[in-house]
């Protein structure tokens, strides 16, 4: 490979800071390399590549009642079992399970998925739905904490400055007494597939009364960045979870797709497909079956 002036492979945060502090050229961090290697193949040439895959301080999962904190270089495969620790982040595990292929899950990292900012990045809608905070180490050694939509600003674009390093992701787990979450996606194939549409739902669910006291819904791959569906949330917040809830949820999802991609070629497909996705996510979230949406029941 020609044209890479410098590479570095620090093992600690301190070393990293020392390497990037005085460097004025463009810096690219590499962890799993599942996106960067392809970019390099296609001619991307940063002035320096900093390999962070050897930094143990970036590869961890901390969990307690209040929050989950995950190192940015934690591989996606390490996220697949988190639901066993807290069902509020089941969506993250489900998204991790369906992420790429086994080989990609073993290499790709949570921080890398944020930095790549792909419209179809499966983890991004989950992180937005779970209201994550992203910890960033700046080139001058200072740190900042940002929300996902403050970092991912457009397709393939972040607000991060040259040399900024995502170090950790915080998930607060603060939605009421009983936060539960679920994720689903539609791709061309069952595995090794890029999402054409994905959906994350987080709810504060009171089991005894079947009430969804609070709800957050984020869709991916229907815009350049994950889209929070506030109008769908409004319609469902505080309601009893029953078939009418499901019908209204699916109807609202179709409306949200219509609003998000009006006139787009994929609109006619996605406005129907989102109902299938919505049903899958509801069933996973509440652990019960729902019937076909009302508008479909007549056509069988």
């Amino acid at each position, binding site marked *: 490979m020609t044209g890479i002036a410098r590479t570095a492979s620090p093992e600690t945060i301190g070393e990293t800071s020392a390497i990037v502090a005085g460097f004025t050229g463009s810096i690219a961090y590499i962890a799993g390399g599942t996106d960067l290697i392809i970019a390099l193949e296609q001619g991307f040439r940063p002035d320096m590549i900093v390999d962070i895959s050897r930094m143990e301080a970036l590869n961890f999962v901390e969990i307690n009642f209040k929050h989950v904190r995950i190192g940015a270089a934690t591989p996606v495969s390490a996220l697949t079992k988190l639901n066993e620790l807290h069902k509020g982040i089941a969506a993250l595990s489900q998204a991790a399970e369906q992420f790429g292929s086994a080989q990609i899950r073993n290499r790709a990292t949570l921080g890398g998925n944020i930095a790549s900012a792909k419209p179809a990045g499966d983890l991004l809608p989950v992180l937005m739905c779970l209201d994550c905070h992203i910890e960033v180490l700046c080139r001058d050694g200072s740190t900042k904490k940002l929300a996902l939509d403050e970092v991912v600003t457009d397709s393939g674009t972040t607000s991060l400055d040259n040399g900024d390093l995502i170090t950790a992701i915080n998930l607060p787990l603060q939605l009421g007494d009983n936060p539960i979450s679920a994720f689903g996606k539609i791709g061309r*194939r*069952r595995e090794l597939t890029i999402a054409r549409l994905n959906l994350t739902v987080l709810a504060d669910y009171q089991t005894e009364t079947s009430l969804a006291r609070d709800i957050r819904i984020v869709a991916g791959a229907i815009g350049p960045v994950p889209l929070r569906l506030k109008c769908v949330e409004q319609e469902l917040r505080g309601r009893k979870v029953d078939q009418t809830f499901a019908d209204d949820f699916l109807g609202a999802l179709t409306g949200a797709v219509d609003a998000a991609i009006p006139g787009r070629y994929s609109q*006619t497909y996605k406005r129907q*497909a989102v109902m*299938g996705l919505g049903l899958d996510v509801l069933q996973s979230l509440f652990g019960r079956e729902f019937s076909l949406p009302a508008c*479909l029941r007549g056509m069988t």
Partner: protein
Amino acid sequence: MKHIANPLPILDGHEKASGQLAFAADMKIAGLLHTKLVFSTVAHARIKEISIEKALGIPGVAGIFHHGNTPDNTYNSTIWFEDQEAPQDEQMFPRTVRHVGDRVAAVVAQTQEIADHAAGLITVEYEVLPAVFDVVSTEKTCMENAGSDEVSIFEKPVLEATFDYGNYRAAFDNAELIVEDRITTPKTHHCAIENHICIAMPQDDGRILIMSPCQSIFAVKFVAAKAMGVPASSLRVVKTPIGGSFGGKAEPVLDPLCAYFAKTLGQPVSICFNRNEVFTATRTRSKAIGHIKTAVDQLGRILARDSDILIDVGAYCTGGIFLPDSMAQRLCRLYDIKNQRYRGRSFYTNTPPAGAYRGYGSPQIHAMSEINLDHTARRLRMDPVEFRMKNLIHPNSVDPVMGLEVGNSRIRDCVEQGSSHFNWRRRWSASGKGNRFRRGVGMACATHINGCFPGFHEATTVTLLLREDGCIDLTCALHDLGCGSNTVIAQIVAEVLDILPGQIEFSEVDTDICDYDLGTRASRMTYIAGEAARRTAMGLKEQILLAASLMLNCAVGNLVMEEGKVSGNCEPGRCVSLGDLALHESVRGKLLTTTQTYRATANPGSYAAHFAEVEVDILTGAVKVLDYLAVHDLGRAINPQLVESQIHGGIQMGLGYALFENVDIDPDSGCMNADRFSRYHLVNAPEMPPVEILLIEKGEPTGPYGAKAVGEIATIPAAPAIVNAVNHALDTNLTELPLTPERIVDACRIP
């Protein structure tokens, strides 16, 4: 039988799996130069100017080639013998580019990086011409141009093939039911693991040596000679191990260029395509649009059929001249139809050229006819299995168009045994309505050829030599594409001579060593090359017995050839090993060797019926294939393990054809949208259903040990079986392949 019907692992499997086998890209050649091609970014244009000065100034650039400094000979890359006639419309670097991805220039340099960099500095000025991306438009233009002498060959039909027998008109007039469909099949791509590559170098004797993974060394030689304007005798071609082809490497795309560069620069040169280049600048499966009309009576007898097929060959003719005829051939070897008309026409478009691809027209024509037959059965309210059984041909039928016998065709057995094994009746009657997930079953039949008989040069020449170590040297231009044809041939020779398959050593596939051969095409390896090997081995056995008879002083009739030795019952215990016999003969100045040419005398059909069960999600349009049964009439399985692998691979390809695969040419720009694996979706392992295989082994009299082909037919019935299953599940008549989620959702649209 010791070696026939033995599931022997592929002979070079270990070498491949352990990475020891050197493919062309692994070869280390001193002083090798590397190439980067510059491709057209527009679909149709005259090249006004190419600016190469900046690129020439890059240190390490050895040469830059374009239409201004290369031969402008026209050629057709589909030919496989020297004087074969085919429209000559290709050039190394045409002055007028005809598709996005057409060749504009090439940079040859000391390293790939330098070549890539320099190629990026070449600028091209185009005078853009009108481009056509759909074959229906070309057909219209051609009809308007008919009779005019002014138009170029690109504005005329490539070829029209027709047949017409019986009285289809009367049959249609009297029919109780006529079912008509317009069915389209997509332009698809081979996706072999190994990308296209070629290495060429000057030899000391002044000739150019071409080394490439190819399907016919002689095709490479004749195509390259034609393009370069040199005698074929000035070229030597050696086949390298091939990492998959499926027809994609049947036509020499890179070889003429590579040989010319090596000759001009006097140095070894390689051209190695990346995946994107393989997609856009090699070959595809032709897109086809068929109007099929079937007339039946109420009892389900097919009275007549009319097929009108438009074939999109893309920017260059290549094998487009054969497609209309090969499709025709398949249409009259499957069902007993007394009145039939066919018209197949191929036309140019400004899209990447079509070429050979597993099945050569069969997947297209069988998808069309089998989808239409299922539609007909639905309209008759008849079980599609029952409907087919009323119309399928019987063994030893004669096809009404070519007059060829179809041989011991066992398609009826395939359908009968398959439907019973699959519990077809029960599954077909079960209705999947009322749910989000709808289940359905589908089946399809198919036939394919065994070799090129009665066409060109359908013969194979094999030389066998018994060595002093008891092993056999086999010399023949055999192109094993990775599916194990060499293993099968070794099993056949081993069976005749009663030695081990591992004792047969295959020669280099080299135009200096091997006799002329068509190469691997037309499902001819087992049936033709296998029979040639069997007959040659019989000849060698005769010689061995004669020599042993003299040495052991025992009449040939009293000799037994067994486990690598010959023993006689004249003197108990007296025997000679094959190696010692060869040694004994060689000191007397004799070699135990024979060369025989086998010319085919028949072209029986291979047959198959595939059965599938699917589940369709009416909300997302996703299709899950739940269960699959493939029944094949292949005469006899020489190697059941390789047969199984061929069928599994064929199903994987056919499922993709039905549900996912399409290179997707942009209707405005002519660019290929699905020009990479993130956009071109192959069926991967999690998508594969459980596959069961049932073989009908009733023997083909003209095949080696009764065997006939399986390689191409394995993929042919898969796509229509899946489409028919989806239509059964949804009670729809979807006829545009692939059945993408969008197309399915369109058919299940919420009111």
